[in-house]
C-alpha cells in the first residue's frame, strides 16, 4: 500500500491550459494512443446527431429545436444542417467536435 505523502493538486485558471496540455500527453502515453500531431489542415471527428429530412425549409427549424432541447440537459451543442447529394442532414453537433475552418 502506498503511503499518502502529498497534497492533492489545485489548478488555477492561469495554470489550467498547461495542466490540460500535460494531461493530454499523459493520457495518450497511458493509453498508448498516438497524439494528433498532423498539421491541422483537415476536419476530423465530427458527427451530426439528428435526422435525414426531405424539406430543406424545415431542416433549420428542426436543427434549432432539437439543439435547444439537448442544451436543456447541459450538453453544449450547435444546430447543424448539411446537404450531401440528395440527402439533407440536420440536427446538432456537440460543441467540442465542431469543425474548424482551415486554409487548405
Amino acid at each position, binding site marked *: *500500500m*502506498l*503511503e*499518502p*505523502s*502529498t*497534497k*492533492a*493538486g*489545485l*489548478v*488555477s*485558471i492561469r*495554470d*489550467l*491550459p498547461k*495542466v*490540460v*496540455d*500535460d*494531461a*493530454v500527453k*499523459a*493520457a*495518450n*502515453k*497511458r*493509453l498508448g*494512443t498516438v*497524439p*494528433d500531431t498532423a498539421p491541422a489542415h483537415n476536419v476530423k*471527428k465530427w458527427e451530426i446527431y439528428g435526422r435525414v429530412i426531405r424539406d430543406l425549409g424545415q431542416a433549420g427549424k428542426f436543427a434549432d429545436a432539437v439543439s435547444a432541447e439537448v442544451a436543456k*440537459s*447541459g*450538453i*453544449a451543442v450547435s444546430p447543424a444542417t448539411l446537404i450531401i447529394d440528395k440527402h439533407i442532414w440536420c440536427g446538432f453537433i456537440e*460543441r*467540442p467536435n465542431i469543425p*474548424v475552418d482551415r486554409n487548405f
Partner: protein
Amino acid sequence: MCPSAQPDMEDARIFGVVAGTPEQPRLAYLKQSAAVTDEMLESLGDLAPTQVFRYAARCEESRCAQFDKGCCSLGRRIADLLPPVTESLPSCQIRPTCRWYVEIGAAACLRCPQVVTMVPEGQGELAKVALPKT
C-alpha cells in the same frame, strides 16, 4: 452528485484534470474560477474526455450498475480497496454534494485523486475496484 460521471450525464461538470504521470494518474482539482474552455476540449483529439478530466453529474441511482442497496458501491470499494494517496482532504468543489463523501466521508476523498473514470487496461488495481460485483 456522482464524482465519477460521464460528460453526457445530467448536470455534468468538470471538477478536475487527470494530472500526474501516465503510470500514476493524479487528479488536480479545479479552483472555482478555473473553467475548461471549448478550445481545451478540442485539444483532446481522439481521447475520451474522461481520460483527461473528471466529471461530476447528477447521480443516476438505480439506473447505474454501481448503485446497490441505496448506496454507491463504487465509492465503497474505492474506500475499502485502494490506498489513500493524499494526506489531507483535497480542495474539491463538489464535496458538499458528493455522493462518495456523503456516504463514506473523508476516506473517499483521500483516495479520490487516483480515480480515472474510464480505467485503461494495465491499471490493475483500479480496474478491479471499478467493476461492480455480479
